[in-house]
């Protein structure tokens, strides 16, 4: 698909768990971004598994500073490259996990987008604080059991709906916003290309299952990601110039599968009873209706 298809800029040998969705995402994204890229990452799984001194998995220049500031570090990188006359042909990517994006890094991200830096921000979303041991985040979906939103006699697990981060980012009026999934690599790669090509901030929300935290088989990662799209749990769309009233749904399943097929494969949802599953299905139906996705099959 690209000139860099054979380049491995995120090298094998990193220490991600077997079946880690983030590793797949980063490897594929860098194939599009190519070697003329500077990346920032925030503290979290990605940093821990890929930068253990004296080794590094990164074949491009990379900087990790702290948890909440991948976007503001990237702002500094981008402005410095421009000031030093080195920005031409160089992409600036900022990676963040869902914790570093939805929660602790949200202010820095909002600032970066509002200031209009030419930075592509990639949120790798595995729906909880995985690096510290599966704690709930504002990315955690309703009903998921985590170590700080455990299911129990008086708890169904996470009690809040997932924060609509991509829509919030798009509302900043940035040139390009998209959601993508590691199950739909071509769609993901097209979106990475568009995000990099626009002049100004772009936000990519990449769905990346975590076998360790979601408690599914490490060989099920891609299938689970695909089920999220096919059930309408995670909708793949893009918006130009922040126009979320006229967004483009890029992958439309012909018939939507019932959410139960997605939920039952993951033990984080294993405690959910029929009525709770029905409640989740109703929420997903409502959302899919809004996005113009087909009826449930």
């Amino acid at each position, binding site marked *: 698909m690209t000139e860099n298809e054979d380049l491995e800029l995120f090298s094998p040998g990193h220490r991600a768990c077997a079946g880690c969705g983030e590793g797949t995402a980063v490897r594929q994204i860098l194939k599009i971004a190519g070697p003329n890229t500077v990346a920032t990452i925030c503290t979290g799984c990605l940093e821990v598994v890929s*930068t253990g001194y004296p080794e590094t998995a990164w074949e491009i220049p*990379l900087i990790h500073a702290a948890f909440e500031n991948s976007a503001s570090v990237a702002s500094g990188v981008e*402005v410095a490259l421009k000031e030093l006359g080195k920005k031409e042909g160089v992409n600036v990517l900022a990676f963040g996990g869902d914790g570093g994006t939805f929660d602790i890094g949200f202010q820095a991200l909002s600032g970066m987008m509002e200031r209009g830096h030419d930075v592509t921000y990639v949120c790798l979303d595995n729906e909880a604080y995985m690096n510290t041991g599966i704690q709930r985040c504002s990315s955690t979906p309703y009903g998921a059991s985590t170590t700080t939103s455990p299911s129990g006699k008086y708890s169904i697990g996470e009690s809040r709906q997932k924060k609509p981060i991509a829509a919030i980012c798009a509302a900043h009026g940035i040139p390009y916003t998209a959601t993508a999934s590691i199950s739909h690599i071509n769609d993901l790669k097209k979106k990475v290309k568009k995000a990099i090509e626009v002049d100004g901030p772009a936000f990519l929300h990449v769905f990346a299952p975590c076998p360790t935290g979601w408690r599914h088989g490490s060989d099920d990662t891609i299938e689970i990601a695909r089920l999220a799209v096919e059930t309408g749990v995670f909708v793949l769309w893009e918006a130009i110039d922040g126009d979320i009233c006229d967004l483009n749904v890029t992958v439309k399943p012909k018939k939507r599968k019932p959410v139960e097929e997605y939920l039952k494969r993951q033990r984080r949802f294993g405690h959910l009873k029929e009525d709770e599953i029905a409640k989740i299905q109703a929420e997903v139906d409502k959302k899919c209706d809004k996005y113009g996705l087909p009826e449930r099959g």
Partner: protein
Amino acid sequence: MGEQKSLTIKGNMATALGAKLCRPNVVPAYPITPSTLFPEKMSEFIADGELDASMINVESEHSAMSACIGASATGARVVTASASQGVALMHEMLFIASGMRLPIVMAVGNRALSAPINIWCDHQDTIASRDSGWLQFYAENNQEGLDLMINAFRIAEDDRVLLPVMVGIDAFVLTHTIEGVDVPAQEDVDNFLPTYDPKQGTLNPKEPATFGSFAPPEFYQEFKQAQTQAIEDSRSVIDEVFDDYAERFGRQYNKVSTFECDDADIILLTMGSMSGTAREAVRKMRKDGKKVGLAKLTVFRPFPMPELKDILGDAKGVAVIERNISPGFGGAVFAELGATFVNEKDRPIMKNFITGLGGRDIFIENFEEMYQKTKDAVEASKVEEPVEWINMNEEVTR
């Protein structure tokens, strides 16, 4: 050598002009009283084409220091300014800037920390950042503010150092006070401070490198030791740069400056703008026949142990006067000065005075009182109360 231009300017303008003369590439900054004039002036210089650089008007001080880190790691010369709560908010990033060995320079308008909220002068903000691995300089007046900024870049960027530097100017007493300042010519600063050429590597796609690695227990301590060695090595670099500056611009800086210390029995040790009043107090007391001197700390990090031993070692008593407090102990300088002398058989009696917090003025009579209390302790050969608070508002404390 070009002629120096005499201007009458505020302290913030002095640090901004000092920074401008150093031709920074990127200025990430967030407004905060009493430093706000600094980003305003830098913005103006850029808007008027006097400075070829970019502002990043970030959304917080945490992001200011984060953007400084990103820009500096990319190879830009970077400057910012902050104060008080702002320095506290960026605390996390201060350690990361020094740990990555990035020569960022920051002007701090030294201001009290909340609560209660207070916008006036003390040194609590930068003293609370003491262990962050930054070099710390404190100015007595606006001229020092400008000069120390220029010296700070040269020291920070020296290959033997590669560490960030903060230059403190006292809130309002300096930041907002208009004083005469001699401003060096641009060409002379250009000769003094070469273009920043980071040999240690930058974020460059042609030579990819990972910055800010994850260092496990078998490596972390070595990183920290190397960083500590660099700040130790900065001691001689500071002297070298201060001397070169004096030769070129006629103003000599020292880690510790002295006034009437040679035959002094009692020495007042001060930091920042209070030193001016303290000097007047020493003049007055000398006229009364009192053998008193003044030692002013310009460099607090690295802490000038050898210089202080040399200057204070023969005195009978030292009054350590501080605009900071570590609750549950005393002042930071007092602790470190005590440790400086701990292995010396002959050492002066030391008393710690906490005063001037949150903008409380320190008057000549306060210095006289502190002198007298120190002298009494020397004569009694014992210190009953090592840490005393001076110039309390009796109506409130009663």
